[in-house]
């Protein structure tokens, strides 16, 4: 018994001593087995990118045979592309482990593309697969943006309804805004002082909403200027804006019955660079000493520089912009400021055009809708119904 007991203890001790070597041997043999097996298949699917203008494909893949240990050992996926599955594939990118999707862009519409994915650990090909063909194409309609279409149709229908009402003579109320009422007073002041008016239409292009509003206000200012026999100077940053301003001022002088008073040299192009333009307009303020400065349209970093100079030269200043970041600078230096949408309201108020009044009314109803959507959305989100907020994620 003693002998057999001793033997048992020796075997047990040797077994315990050998255990780590045994597990190591298992690892080595597993690794060796990996080397000897062919790479596992990767299932690759290639599809056209939905709702895009074309030239893009989505490549997705999965490795159904791989267990979690194998997947964990993969550290890079190499993605190659070819227009022919039998020819050579060109490597286009490498992705980190865990990726299952790649969006390829800059492709030619209507052409076949094949993709090969190879999964590596440090040196070994663990899995490999080829998929395709995928044919990129553009879509005419982005179905992801249907909510925007609904909103556009809703708003356009409302606006048209109000415009028709305004054309039929229905008078819409527009709440008084201090900056609007100050326009006529400022022109009168310039006339009394015998000094010109400076009208700066900003740095926007002619198709931007704020610049379009600036044209309407310029029309009103120019007409009053013509009636009072004074002068308006309009330095421009954009050549197309200059052309429109010339047309607007000329039209206003004609409407006031004084077409001969219009001088095309007063509505001129300066330069299309932000700070040189600012420096030139500052020079006009200091040398021509305008009694009133209007800043209407899109403004950026030059807003404070312009308004400060106007303040130093002693001009009355009225500004209007929808550039949120610049409004504080105008508020701090100018006498009156039309903030954001007030600029559009001023345009409608001064022109009294049915189109603008009707649109303003429709905008207000749009705001009512937004208020309702916010309240409903807040309730839904609070109760955990997130699908409502997701409706606005139009991609």
């Amino acid at each position, binding site marked *: 018994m003693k002998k057999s007991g001793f033997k048992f203890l020796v075997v047990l001790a040797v077994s315990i001593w050998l255990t780590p070597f045994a597990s190591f041997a298992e690892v080595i043999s597993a690794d060796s087995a990996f080397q000897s097996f062919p790479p596992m298949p990767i299932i690759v699917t290639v599809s056209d990118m939905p709702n895009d203008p074309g030239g893009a494909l989505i490549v997705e893949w999965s490795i159904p045979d791989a267990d979690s240990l194998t997947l964990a050992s993969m550290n890079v996926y190499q993605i190659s592309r070819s227009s022919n599955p039998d020819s050579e594939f060109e490597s286009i990118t490498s992705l980190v482990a865990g990726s299952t999707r790649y969006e390829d862009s800059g492709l030619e519409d209507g052409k076949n593309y094949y993709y090969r994915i190879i999964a590596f650990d440090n040196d070994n090909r663990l899995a490999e697969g080829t998929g395709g063909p995928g044919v990129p194409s553009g879509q005419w309609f982005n179905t992801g*943006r249907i*909510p*925007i279409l609904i*909103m*556009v149709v809703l708003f356009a229908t409302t606006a048209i309804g109000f415009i028709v009402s305004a054309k039929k003579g229905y008078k*819409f*109320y*527009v*709440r008084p*805004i201090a900056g609007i009422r100050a326009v006529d007073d400022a022109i009168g002041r310039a006339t009394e002082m015998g000094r010109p008016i400076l009208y700066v239409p900003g740095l926007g292009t*002619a*198709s*931007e*909403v704020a610049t379009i509003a600036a044209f309407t206000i310029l029309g009103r200012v120019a007409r009053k200027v013509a009636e009072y026999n004074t002068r308006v100077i309009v330095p421009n940053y954009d050549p*197309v804006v200059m*052309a*429109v301003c*010339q*047309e607007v001022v000329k039209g206003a002088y004609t409407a006031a019955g004084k077409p001969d008073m219009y001088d095309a040299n007063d509505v001129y192009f*300066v*330069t*299309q*660079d932000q700070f*040189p333009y600012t*420096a*030139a307009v*500052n*020079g006009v303020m*200091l040398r021509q000493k305008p009694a009133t400065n209007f800043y209407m349209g899109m403004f950026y*970093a030059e807003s*404070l520089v312009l308004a400060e100079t106007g303040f130093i030269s002693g001009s009355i200043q009225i500004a209007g912009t929808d550039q*949120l*970041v610049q409004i*504080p*600078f105008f*508020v*701090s230096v100018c006498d009156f400021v039309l*903030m*954001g*949408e007030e600029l559009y309201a001023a345009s409608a108020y001064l022109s009294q055009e049915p189109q603008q009044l009707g649109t*303003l*009314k429709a*905008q*207000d109803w749009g*705001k009512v809708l*937004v*208020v309702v*959507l*916010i309240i409903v*959305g*807040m309730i*839904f*989100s*609070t*109760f955990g119904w*997130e699908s409502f*907020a997701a409706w*606005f*994620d*139009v991609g």
Partner: protein
Amino acid sequence: MTPQEWGLYEYIFNGVAALLTLCIFSFLYKDNPFYKFAERLVAGVATGYFTMLLFWTNFMDKVYDPLKAGQWWYIFPAVLGVMMWTRFSKKWAWVSRYSIAFYIGIGSGVSITVYLYTYLFKQLQATIGFPITMDIAGLNQFLVIIAVLSALVYFFFSTPHKGALGFVSKIGIYVIMICFGAGFGLTVMGRVALLVNRVIFLKGYLIQLFGG
């Protein structure tokens, strides 16, 4: 290139930059011939630079090269561009209005969906995407909702701001002013950084010139 590697060329052109900077700064005293010189120089240089830039990035890239490559449909925007030149003639100036109308029409039409996407849908999603809970995050969300709603009410134009609407509108204008105050502070800090950058440039040039 480090200042230690400067040659005559760098000394001259950095000197011109420093001199023009001082000319522009002289405006802080009052309008003077140095400022006038710098103002007209920079306006002239900018106009010349942008003329050439637009020639190469617009005319060559978007008209000449496509037409040369047989993309004949580029002739239409080119013709619209040429029509703008009729403004030089009093008789034919009206023709340019078609180009302007096309430009403004296309620009406005395209921007409608972009504006709705950026200023309505993204903002709405960000505003209502979080629940109101009984903690700091919930309180923050509640304040955001109140601020957005009251600021929206301030911008109602077709109703007099009286009674309850007037009260909410007043909250709205306070919200807007707080926003402007924060924006003002942030931007002023950025501008001060620009000034500091310019002063460092002048200081560096003087040290390079005279040692120190």
